[in-house]
């Protein structure tokens, strides 16, 4: 048991997905999706990027993100006790079963619903995260933005792994641990990754802590943070990619007034992040 024991942690989330110029040009929908859900003291953020060549991949992305959010909210305690390979098997089977059902309804092969998947679920002092394909999972800790899970691509630029691949289980990475000093998480699709990750140096850019600071600031409603994310993606990220862009953020609520000891502990660990609260642009 970590520092927080079974205490409830209030979380804030903000997620957006924006259509890329190549999809506008080809008249195809945005194939990225994000979902956030809080239920049973569990908060989940998920993100999925539908395969460009698949006709219904936006539906696949929607089903995958919603399934993992629902399943984690309902089964977090059981799931986190299991081995990584069992967790990935349970989640993947659930997703593929839902995709098969939809594919059957629409009389299409299930591959037409292919997508990547990234998620993080948190409850009390623990987190459970998973990742298949490209995109990136980052987290905020000790005044730094760190990487939890990197993209898994093929050798070439347009190759990655999807939930519907035959060997998907081999590429499904699971992460679970105590939250300890983590203040929040960020999920990003490969489109956003072009702006938020420096490939040569292998580091997340400063823009990550900027957008995270917006969510930490209680003066900003979820709607305002989401509108700001959308506006920045449209005006800046889409200059660097023709792909869809999505981001999903989760932060632990810093106004846990009901738990003075938690607040004291939290303010201690967020000391290095203080600059973020009084961010010059914030």
């Amino acid at each position, binding site marked *: 048991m970590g520092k927080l024991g079974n205490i409830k942690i209030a979380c804030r989330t903000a997620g957006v997905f924006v259509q*890329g110029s*190549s999809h506008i040009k080809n008249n195809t929908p945005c194939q990225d999706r994000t979902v956030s859900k809080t239920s049973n003291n569990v908060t989940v953020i998920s993100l999925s*990027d*539908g*395969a*460009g*060549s*698949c006709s219904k*991949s936006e539906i696949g992305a929607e089903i995958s993100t919603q399934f993992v959010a629902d399943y984690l909210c309902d089964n977090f305690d059981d799931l986190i006790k299991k081995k990584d390979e069992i967790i990935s098997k349970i989640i993947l089977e659930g997703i593929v079963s839902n995709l098969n059902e939809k594919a059957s309804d629409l009389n299409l092969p299930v591959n037409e619903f*292919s997508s990547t998947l990234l998620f993080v679920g948190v409850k009390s002092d623990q987190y459970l995260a998973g990742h298949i394909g*490209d995109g990136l999972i980052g987290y905020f800790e000790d005044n730094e933005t760190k990487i939890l899970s990197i993209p898994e*691509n093929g*050798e*070439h*630029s*347009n*190759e*990655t792994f*999807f939930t519907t691949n035959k060997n998907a289980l081999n590429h499904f990475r699971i992460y679970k641990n105590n939250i300890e000093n983590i203040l929040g998480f960020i999920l990003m699709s*490969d*489109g956003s990754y*072009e*702006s*938020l*990750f*420096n*490939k*040569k*140096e*292998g580091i997340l*850019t*400063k*823009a990550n802590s*900027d*957008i995270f600071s*917006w969510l930490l600031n209680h003066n*900003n409603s979820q*709607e*305002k*943070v989401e*509108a*700001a994310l959308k*506006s*920045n993606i449209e005006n*800046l*990220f889409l200059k*660097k*990619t*023709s*792909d869809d862009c999505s981001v999903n953020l989760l932060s632990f609520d810093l106004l846990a007034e009901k738990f003075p000891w938690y607040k004291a502990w939290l303010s201690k660990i967020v000391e290095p992040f203080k600059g973020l609260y009084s961010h010059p*642009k*914030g």
Partner: protein
Amino acid sequence: MNLKSLTINEDELANNPSPRIPICLVLDTSKSMYGAAIKELNNGVSLFMSAILDDEVTRYSAELSVITFGGVVHNVIEFGSIENQKIPKFKAYGGTLMGEAIETTLDLLDERKKEYQKAGVDYFQPWMIIMTDGRPGDNINNVITQITELIKKRKLTLFPIAIGEKADLSILSKLSPEKKPLKLKGLKFNEFFQWLSRSVSVVSQSIPGEKIELDIEGLKEWASLEI
């Protein structure tokens, strides 16, 4: 809703290079290409380079290397961005060292990929275009194994193009067991290179997971498909 205060400074975003498409033109410049064929080949390559430069996206993605085999194997243009490259002028002479030329090209491709990986540059599956009007004058068996293995593993896209009636189609077929070699209609080099630049443009604008479909209908403008 006032979002002015929630704006990212553009300098705080990554400035990652565009994914590269390595393209190798492996060209027969042996003495049998003398005359109209070498002239049209020169025009075609020039047209190809200009077409890439005119494309706002592809000019930053396409990286060209040109290897000729006429008497000697020569890396006429080293891998790089087309905007920094000079349009070459080929002369026809000597024998057809196709085996050595392909082997050299594979080595150059390997080196380039290592450079991409080191620099954190993403890249698409490399393209190799072999154009010949004859038959190899050297040993080609080793490279047939290497090339077919790369194609099988989807690590190389090969376009074998036969020029004229004397091109050895059986050798080109061995190099490319999945896709039949294509035969250039007359000396329609310009049409071929226009098609090639359009195809490179399609790849450069593709996104992960997207199936890349080449303009098969456009092939008919320059290729005889009945071989």
